[in-house]
């Protein structure tokens, strides 16, 4: 600690005070500093008062002003430090805030349920109604009305589970587990006149052995729009909007906000489904490599996500719509497929094991 020597003048003394203040860590140190600088006796301020008495009138003028300012400043700095020391002091009833919290239990959403809701939300925004339908169906709604009469080769594409004892009622014989949500298209159109704008979401069943990419039950999203002048281009715009919403990386890859709905985000590949004509399989730009080609997309830059097309006139005829009056588009997308892609899940069976170590990776 410095010797009190007022001959160095208030300015040099101020520097000494600042250095000493910087070293103060405790209340006691602060109190000692206070006594030493602004105490009644034997303090720097007392010493300056003393020095003033013997100063020349000339010196008095500057020394008096300097000493006064120094005192004010010291008092203000001490008060400030006192406050900050008080703020840092740990009260007696303090807790160890680093101990673990008492967490209320919170469940986790199933990833398939998250995708279902997300897709439902996207189409609700686009003005669609979201529907669910029966899982046990009759042959008529699942196949025949969808332009797949008995012995149609396309029935091989969807290996079907049948009931041991069909459930018979007055107007139908429920005999199988629906192989696609398309059955819901028919049920809705039978009951409602056009226009139609719906998505149907739910489980479907096909006789596939369990492996990395197949489960005998999976979930599908079916979309159907029917009205005057609905076109294949409308389908493309709609699916591009959905793909961009589900996979934000596609949008950023297009990188041009001016591009109308990201023309390059998806592509149509002509295909065949009995219930649509024209038919197209839809690829999204690879979400991993943004189209430049990688192992995930087999170097094509594209990943298939769904099947779609313009509703076949035979389907309209089956439900009593006039194919000369209305046109429509339909699409069917696997929920598991989207989830696998979106989160990089490598084994589809994980969705049905309900292992909490898996489920807990997803939020609410």
């Amino acid at each position, binding site marked *: 600690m410095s010797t009190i020597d007022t001959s160095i003048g208030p300015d040099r003394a101020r520097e000494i005070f600042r250095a000493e203040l910087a070293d103060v860590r405790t209340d006691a140190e602060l109190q000692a500093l206070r006594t030493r600088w602004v105490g009644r006796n034997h303090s720097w301020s007392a010493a300056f008062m003393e020095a003033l008495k013997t100063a020349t009138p000339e010196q008095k003028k500057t020394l008096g002003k300097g000493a006064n300012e120094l005192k004010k400043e010291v008092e203000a700095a001490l008060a400030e430090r006192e406050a900050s020391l008080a703020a840092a002091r740990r009260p007696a009833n303090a807790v160890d805030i680093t101990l673990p919290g008492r967490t209320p239990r919170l469940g986790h959403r199933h990833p398939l349920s998250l995708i279902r809701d997300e897709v439902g939300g996207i189409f609700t925004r686009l003005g669609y109604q979201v529907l669910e339908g029966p899982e046990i169906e009759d042959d008529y709604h699942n196949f025949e009305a969808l332009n797949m009469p008995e012995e149609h080769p396309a029935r091989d594409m969807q290996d079907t589970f049948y*009931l041991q004892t069909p459930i018979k009622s007055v107007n139908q014989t429920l005999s199988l587990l629906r192989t696609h949500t398309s059955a819901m298209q028919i049920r809705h159109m039978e009951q409602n006149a056009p226009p139609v704008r719906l998505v149907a979401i739910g489980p479907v069943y096909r006789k596939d052995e369990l492996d990395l990419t197949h489960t005998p039950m999976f979930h599908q999203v079916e979309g159907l729009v029917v009205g005057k002048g609905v076109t294949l281009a409308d389908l493309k*715009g709609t699916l591009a909007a959905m793909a961009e919403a589900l996979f934000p990386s596609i949008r950023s890859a297009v990188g041009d906000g001016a591009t109308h709905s990201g023309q390059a985000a998806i592509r149509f590949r*002509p295909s065949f489904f009995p219930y649509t*004509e024209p038919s197209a399989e839809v690829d999204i730009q690879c979400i991993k490599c943004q189209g430049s080609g990688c192992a995930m997309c087999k170097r094509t830059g594209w990943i298939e996500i769904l099947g779609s097309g313009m509703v076949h006139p035979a389907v309209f005829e089956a439900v009593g719509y006039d194919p000369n009056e209305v046109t429509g588009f339909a699409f069917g997308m696997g929920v598991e497929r989207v989830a696998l892609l979106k989160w990089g899940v490598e084994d589809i069976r994980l969705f049905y094991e*309900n292992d909490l170590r898996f489920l807990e990776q997803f939020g609410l």
Partner: protein
Amino acid sequence: MKVLLSWIREFVDVPESAEDIGKLMSVRGLALEGLESHGDDVVMDFDVTANRPDCLSMIGIAREIATAYQRPLKVPEGRDFSPASSRADAGIAISIESADLCGRYVGAIADVTVGPSPQWLQDRLIACGIRSISNVVDITNYVLLELGQPMHAFDLDKLAGPGIIVRRAKPGESITTLDGKKRTLTSDMLVIADTARAQAIGGVMGGADSEVCATTRRIVFEAAHFTPSSVRKTSKTLGLKTDASTRFERGMDVTAPARAMARACQLLEQIGAGKAAGTIKDVYPSPQPATSLILERTRVSGLLGMDVPDAHLERILRSLGFDVQSASAEASADRTAGQAGWSITAPAWRVDIKRPVDLIEEVGRHHGFEHLPSTFPGVQQAPAASDPRIGRDRRVRTALLGMGYSEAITFAFIEAVAAEPFLPSTTLGGTAREAPVALANPLSEKFAVMRPSLLPGLIDAVSHNRRHGRRDVQLFEIGTRFSPRGESRGAGFAWTGLASADHWGGARRDVDFFDVKGVVEQLAAVSVVSPAFAETYVPYLVKGRAAAIVVNGQHVGVVGLLDPSIADRRDLPSGDEVYVAEINLDLLTAQATVGTLRAAALPRFPWVVRDVSILVDDALSAGTVRGTIRSAAPGTLIDIREFDRYQGKGIPDGKVSLSLRLTFQSPERTLTDEEVQAGMQHIIDALTRDLQAIQR
């Protein structure tokens, strides 16, 4: 369909690489599944959709490639086969007895020397995945690959009688097919026979008896047209799928047999395997007219949402083999004026073309779907409401998640034994159970019946987690349950382990009945209904720890402790207590008052609280005590809450001390001490009188 690039190039000039061709064709309707080099050549494997049997051939794929690249399809020199002559008096005798199953049969006799095929021919077959057998058989397969027309060769000297008979199989008739298997036929199957017996199953496979072998001197070549549905049925019934049946069941070109026969005879001479002896016999009793359609111009852009110039449209269709004629408004006078377009005739190989939309697809895909703009369908009316179950399920899901349950999704089909205890009884309190909805063709015994309840799946999911090191498990599922009476939506949940998350500062307690009952009460609150709980017996819950959930007299679910024997059977660690509950959401919704809800004004007058402690028989339920209080209380009693239940020191055996907190409040005025006291006295009197309660 595996095609060889060199073979394709015989029909179209495509110097482009196989990769480039594959890339373009993938967006024109022929997805490339694989590429592999074969010597200097390349094998391209295209995925041909079920509607395009014409593309199960080199010529078919070449035609698509020619159209995609806007190049002509070439006819190699010497291969322009004019229609073969048909003379009933020459060549081999052919009799079609079942013309509904065989529309055309072309036959030719040839003298042959059987031996190996030349190397180039063998190479081409092998590259395309077909084994080389002998020059004669190889020719039939070569023509199959090149033109798509399946063919067969019979050893003529092994046939009985003067000719070929195409007829339905006789009852009990059998045949040993080329694969060496003896097959019994039914009378709806078509056979190619001699006078004695069946020698081939039409469109599916030839017979071993007349198989061409090393010593064969004379053969009959067959190129025919069979009815798709019949071939499909026969192939399915016999479990016999061949290159021929795959094509016939999808539909073949009825004009192809004659061309194929001419090509086969040409090849026979070309490779020195023999020579056709005499006329090619072509029996085609009722020639099929070609499909002609009117394509209206406005329909094309009306369906696609993009304009295709007339010249493009015409080029595309002509390149694919269609005959395209402009049809003026007058020519299609039966149509509305201004819908002029084209009169189009489909080639015979395009069995998939039935309606104008089929033509629009051809135009659209070859014009290029990449040219489609992205537009949105116009809204013509306000969107209709979604299925109300979706919003309801979301509310229930959110509540369960908030109460700590994670969401499970399990398979809807389960093991029959797992379902058994959960099947509803058919009689009230009886042991007879409803039959499950069973599958006729389950994947395995593990997936044999549709679940009658969500609980078996949840129990298995809990078991899985317990066996993978998880002590505390809370899972729920919202899904469909199945019964012969129909489908219903339920919410089920299962809970094992600690009642609340383990914490350094707290006491540990395992989940008990009242934890799960509380969850059920909260789920009822989601739908704004108040549930009652009644003792119940169900085979999967422990007696005395099970309750039926009742809303307005309607049984909507159960809650309780899972029977340990079931837990044991589903491989749960022994000693695990698993509490479960299941609610029929459809029934619960039917009772919900949330739709007609009116908000009540907040009370303006103070409430008065009185506590009472009584000593009663310990067999007496809290519900009975509450009932007695309610019936004796004035209308101002608004709440009864049990806050202590004590047995033990100071309480006589067989008795229990119950402490209740009663709240009184009036919406109209401030209650006086006197009237509350009078009400309390009334209640205590009733408890003493009716339940022999002793006030403590």
